[in-house]
């Protein structure tokens, strides 16, 4: 369980670093499936 959470946390931190660096809005990326920085990301605040 410890290893599973450790892996889960590391993966989340890496994804977070990636989306933060490339300015990807997560909800939009999940909806559109576009995870590249050129994805069409528009959301209403």
């Amino acid at each position, binding site marked *: *369980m*410890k290893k599973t*959470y*450790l892996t*889960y*946390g*590391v993966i*989340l*931190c890496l*994804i*977070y*670093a990636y*989306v*933060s*660096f*490339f*300015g*990807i*809005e*997560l*909800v*939009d990326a999940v909806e559109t499936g576009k995870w590249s*920085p*050129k*994805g*069409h*990301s*528009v*959301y*209403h*605040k």
Partner: protein
Amino acid sequence: MDGKSLKTFNCPQCGSIVEIRAQGLSLSIVCSSCRSIIDSSNETYQILQKAQKVIAYKPLIPLGRRGKLFGTLWEVIGCMERADGTDTYYWTEYLLFNPTKGFAWITEANGHWNFMHKARILPKETNSFNLRNMLNKVNYLGKDYQLYHRGTARVKFVIGEFYWRVQIGDETKVEDYIRPPEILSLEESGTEKTWSIGQYVEAADIKKNFLITEPMPMVSGVSPNQIASFHSYSEDIFKYATLFISIICFIQFYALVDANSKSDFVESFSYTSRAEPMNYTSGSFELNHQYSNLEIELSSDVDNNWIEVGVDLINDETGENREFEMGTEFYSGYDSDGRWTEGSRKNDIVISGIPKGKYHLNLQALGNRSNMSTVNFSVSITHGVLAWKNFFIFVGLLVLFPLLLWWRQRTFEMRRWADSDYSPFRSHQENS
């Protein structure tokens, strides 16, 4: 413990052969045939207590059975059943003997097992005062133990031999203090105080080590000093969660410093209602960050009116286009309740992941054709806004499992303390 040197004598009550396993140490012994309790401190073998009736009782671990616990080979020499003062809660105690280690106990209550032996030193009764629960504590070998139970214990049944003069009906005051997986028990009889320290043992270990072939007693509830299955990793999970959330906060903090959110561009336009949309082109603005989040705000002076604006964000160098729509509507009036308003004159959206470069906007405005008034609107662009949604989503995903674990821990602890008069959850349990 070679099994060859057992001393025997004839029961003064029924004449059956009685074996002494802990020679010179046993002070009382129960005849396995007539259940009379015999004084075995000397060779006169006086009857201490005649059996009222012979109860057919077969201990789960037979007398004479040997088993290894915590590295020592023990022999079961006695067994007794005890009950609390209300005669509702029963437990079984097996007296163990090892010629070099002396005596020890294994106890069983509700299918939970403990290995007990005499405390090495006298615990300090700190009587520390907890404002909320008025809990008593004792300190043993530098560790605090919390009071769990205070009451009496009465002997209901005995078989085998014991190092004191045991009798059915013997009553002692008992106190249990816990620090899972340990339990510290005090037995007080007259002026004599005996402290024992115990450790939770899995039923499977008892079954395996003492070669028990019978089904083990059914486990019910949580034992006072039982350790939850998730205890071994929960502390590490909480540490990891703290570490990961700190990393996320650090990244967000870095993004916050790096974002340098500022308004780049504001431009105003005027729209007169017509059948066809009106087109506008804004001036250019430049984004210098590798990737930016842009907040685009549309504000207008609509009054009982609406306006829709289609926006194309165009990269001057590559021609790449991002299109989206925005609109504002605002209505107001008076009714029997007074003034009312609906809608807003402002609207904003955030677009993320815009690469650096020079951009301009192409706008296409459309208003209410039946309302011939002129609508003034402006578009402002702020770059470097932070995507807080991401932050909260990731923090939420990271705390999900520790939160679940915390809830399981709390539920487990509440079940542990459910039968205690000294429960730290007492007020909570009474309310629920």
